[in-house]
């Protein structure tokens, strides 16, 4: 049982992210139409498509570390997504890249990079848990990964725990009034709708875990 994950996993995660975002594009648009401006799925789809193009560009050196992969994702999202999600996701991946500077990552490393991502999002967006934003997915995800790491679990287990917590976190935004982002303009009318950024965050973390598990079973 593998307890570390590396650049292959990170690359696979990115590819799976692009596929998942493409597949869920309309779902994310619809969530954003309800309490925002209807572009979240389009924004991420544009961003991850651009990431794939960069990844497959024969002229650029292939990323050698997990950090390299995240850095490529960070800069590409930053310069193609726009809106609120672009800088927020961009900063998340940038901080995660710094946290994951080795070639491989163990369970503690997963927790570290998720902590770093949360830190980046909060540094830019100033949101707290309960504000009905992507923070509501990332914060419990990081905490869950840390718990697995502290309990001696594998990186893959940490990612799965993070994904599960992120999904629960996303679901927890349904009954909330928003205090950050566009949905905050709606007041009570946001109640009953899921935050699109929290939903996309859960999606990305789920494919992160899937990527780790499939790498593992291939071994």
């Amino acid at each position, binding site marked *: 049982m593998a307890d570390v994950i590396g650049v292959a996993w990170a690359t696979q995660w990115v590819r799976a992210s692009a596929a998942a975002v493409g597949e869920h594009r309309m779902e994310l648009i619809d969530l954003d*139409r309800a309490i925002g401006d209807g572009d979240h799925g*389009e924004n991420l789809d544009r961003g991850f498509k651009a990431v794939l193009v960069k990844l497959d560009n024969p002229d650029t050196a292939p990323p050698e570390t997990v950090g390299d992969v995240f850095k490529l994702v960070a800069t590409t999202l930053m310069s193609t997504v*726009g809106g*609120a999600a672009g*800088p927020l996701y961009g900063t998340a991946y940038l901080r995660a890249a710094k946290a994951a500077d080795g070639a491989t990552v163990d369970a503690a490393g997963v927790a570290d990079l998720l902590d770093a991502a949360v830190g980046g999002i909060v540094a830019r967006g100033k949101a707290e848990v309960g504000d009905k934003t992507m923070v509501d997915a990332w914060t419990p995800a990081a905490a869950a990964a840390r718990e697995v790491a502290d309990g001696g679990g594998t990186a893959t287990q940490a990612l799965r725990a993070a994904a599960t917590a992120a999904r629960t976190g996303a679901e927890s935004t349904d009954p909330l009034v928003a205090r950050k982002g566009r949905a905050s303009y709606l007041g009570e009318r946001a109640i009953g709708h899921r935050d699109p950024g929290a939903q996309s965050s859960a999606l990305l973390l789920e494919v992160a875990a899937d990527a780790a598990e499939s790498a593992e079973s291939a071994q």
Partner: protein
Amino acid sequence: MKKLINDPQNVVAESVQGFVAAHADLVVAGDNPEELFVSRAGGAVQGKVGLVSGGGSGHEPLHAGFVGVGMLDAAVPGPVFTSPTPDPILAATKAADGGAGVLHIVKNYTGDVLNFETAAELADAEGITVRAVVTDDDVAVQDSLYTAGRRGVAGTVLVEKIAGAAAERGDDLDAVAEIATRVNANARSMGVALTACTVPHAGKPSFDLGEDEIEIGIGIHGEPGRRRIPLASADEITDLLLDPIVEDLGVSSGDQVLLFVNGMGGTPSSELYIVYRHARTQLEAKGATVARSLVGNYITSLEMQGASITVLRLDDELTALYDAPVHTPALRWGL
């Protein structure tokens, strides 16, 4: 979805191509299509503070329609309703810099603020002094700890016009920023939607509104408003928009104001003038003088039917700067 477009992915690029072709005497587009911006045809004016604004597309003529003498030096059109990324903002900032620094005029949305912030940092690293003024004139949103703050809406046009005139007369960066801040502080807006709009990439209306319902307190991105009410008469709707503005701004007897009735894109100008008529009467009943007026489609939400009202409290300097010559594709006088 019925639109005069080709591929939804190309809407912004093709529209900007047509725009710069039609107004080649006034504007040019940057060379790199990945970093789309529009700037003055003659290049940056040396020694003048540069004004840059931008944001999601779909609000035309804002912002590119206001690039020209006496207003903006460059505008950055993002994807429809999506803030542009830092790269084109940086490129526009460089194009607008005439050595006296650049003012970013940013509508208060999380995405716009974050992307302009990053661009400003990058510009700073390249030795360009940037200041930002964030507009937040929308009284439909409460400015409190529990929201992202008030939105920047139609008042932004007035900030661009008046700050543009200040830059044109030679004010330095701090002075232009002060004027822009003053306009924003004295402007209040509120809007109504009769119909939703359809973002090309989404392909369906941004919200579903019954045949007898309207949305009060909408923004400019097809987002739902503060509340949904039954369709009412133009005069009643005008009161619903104007009252919060007048209250929040504290309009009182003797005030000189600019009354701006803005169309959301799909409302005929005849209806805008019906709104204007009643709003003017109500302001005059409060003892205010409507010293300047602007009526038309200046900051829109694609093909949405609806309107917003903006009241700007004037002082002599703001009035003089508003009256100063302007020559842009969408606003022109005195030249």
